């Protein structure tokens, strides 16, 4: 038991080589901490559940910290971190092909129900979005939820602007079909 107890102490404790050493590193830490709620929500919208959102956000920030030297323009740290997070989420979405949404039985909403799933289930637009492929969903979430311009999306993801626009167009077309289908279902 002693070994594990020590591991846990180290896990939560401090390394002996800690702390930011450059302006870029200081900005990464500051942005990661200040933006944790927003990035967690961004990851949750992309991945569809809280557990994956937490894992992805943490993984992304660790990756970013590891890659601190590659942040060439510290003034763009927020966009850079967003890009790292979206790429981590994109990898996860691609690995599982589809976001796993657990359908809850009516009236069976326990107190620990996943908060992202609950929110997405309640909103028809969010439900329509969850059927999109990873890259389409990323564009929709960044642009409409995150308020990022299409140029900003292109910048964050390193995609050509034309690609972003065409993906948004496809995403809206698919969402319209989903919303129309849902409306027709309701009308029956």
């Amino acid at each position: 038991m002693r070994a594990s107890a020590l591991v846990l102490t180290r896990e939560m404790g401090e390394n002996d080589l800690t702390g930011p050493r450059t302006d870029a590193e200081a900005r990464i830490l500051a942005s990661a901490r200040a933006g944790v709620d927003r990035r967690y929500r961004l990851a949750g919208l992309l991945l569809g559940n809280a557990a994956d959102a937490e894992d992805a956000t943490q993984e992304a920030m660790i990756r970013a910290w590891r890659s601190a030297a590659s942040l060439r323009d510290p003034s763009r740290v927020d966009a850079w971190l967003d890009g790292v997070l979206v790429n981590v989420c994109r990898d996860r979405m691609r690995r599982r092909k589809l976001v796993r949404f657990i359908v809850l039985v009516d009236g069976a909403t326990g107190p620990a129900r996943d908060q992202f799933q609950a929110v997405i289930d309640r909103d028809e637009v969010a439900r329509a979005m969850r059927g999109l492929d990873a890259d389409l969903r990323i564009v929709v979430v960044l642009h409409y939820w995150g308020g990022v311009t299409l140029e900003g999306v292109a910048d964050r993801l390193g995609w050509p602007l034309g690609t972003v626009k065409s993906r948004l167009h496809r995403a809206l077309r698919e969402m319209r079909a989903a919303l129309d289908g849902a409306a027709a279902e309701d009308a029956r």
Partner: protein
Amino acid sequence: MSDDLDRRVREGLGGLDLPPAPSSLHDAMDRLGAEPPGRPHPRWRGALRAAPVLAVAVAMVAVLAWGSGLRLGVSPGATPSASAGGTPGQSSTTSSTPLPGLSTANPKPSGSIVPWLDQTAFTAPSPTPVVIPSGTPTCLPGDLTASAGWQGGGGQMLGWLGATNVGKHPCILEGSPRLVELRSAKTILEPITYHGEPSDGSSDPSVIAGPVLLTPGGAAAAFLSWSNWCRATTPVVTSLTVTLPSGGAPIEAGPTSPGPGIGGAPRCDAPSAGSTFTAYAFTPVAPEAPPSAPQPASVALSVPSSATAGADLVYYVTLTNLGTQAAPLDPCPTYSENLVVGGRALKLPTVQFLLLNCAAIGPALASGASVTLEMHLPVPANVVPGPATLHWDMDPGGSLDTSAASPQASITIVGPPPSSHSVTPSPKVLLAFKGSGIKSSEPFTASGDSVTLAYTYDCSGAGSSGRFDATLFDRNGVAITIFGGSARSGGDIAPEYISNTAPPYHVEVSTDCAWAISVTGTP
């Protein structure tokens, strides 16, 4: 119409009431700076990957951090309650050297020097075994009260069942508790497959845990893990019913800490598989140590100006207790040391917890007292000669608080003297791995202190600007290094230090790009 949809999507998504990040994620961000930039913190990745032993550690963090009744504090110098680091409001004076006036050839300070102890907290002998008087009875259900708690860790729920002897006589607990049922309010959660483990879940699963003597008021705890809950509802468990290893009437365990219940349910990882609940053997819970505030301490390093690759770096550390009270050395506090060469630490932070030679120092370091300790740090033979930095610090949680600054000293690594007798084994290609997209390599073994990792990637055919990410893992899922880049193409070649990692290793690649990776070293 398009504008209508545009507005509808904007308003729909913009109006979502999404939850804020959990406190665990905020805590993780607060810890983010606790690793040197440019090098991953292996345990974090390991924890994310839910390697079993690491998951145990994560769970212990979570449960112990509750600050509730259960405290498994048998770690030398690192009681869980003090693991958060320095005590607020306490100052710590730390000096960094090399000390002026010291000879390069002989940095040895004058006066009494405590010899080096080649022992980590992991290899230290166990505390003196508790002698169980013959005739001590087995604990009966009526002798005990129980409580339980767990939290999420890598998709599982991990926690503890605690048992306290409320009787008037000592008794013995041996083995793992047996699950009878989990309840969420009045609902029994099922089906759940129970599995009992004879080990205590801490490290080596082949070691069967021994009996635990519970004196009146004494406590024991059994580690619990619950995985793969795929039912439609996600319950909060409000009670846990078990029988003792020796059987008898069931005991109901309530929540360890105030709140809605014992804990939540695990993630659904495999819908076609069942839900599994594992209970490990009871293990003793150390009695609550009397509160002892860490004493601020200064550190002075006395190091030679150079160290030879392939030889021990011998240096000296002088610790001075600047506090107003004696700093007890039982449990013996631990320290960490590291040589940083070319921006890379030679040791992984996971394998520190080096023990001071407390037996030679005495039971405590008195207020105002100093002690000088000899230290040996093996310098790998294949370290590139050049400037390096030696870092040394007490681990947090011990009785000596050196958290205000990290003592360090500059040193130059020089190559080993040429020898006509030594034969260095020629490196071999241990892994040649190329392809495109997401792939995982076959396992490979390596020995020695390091391997050379080389990679190239080409994202020009990926359609968008590429991103190449790959991770070198050891057997336990600990990420030794994460490497890659986000350029159109690129590559690198660098040594990766694998001391104290566990082979076999493998590489996982996550990218759209084409890539080639090779690992060379000693098989």
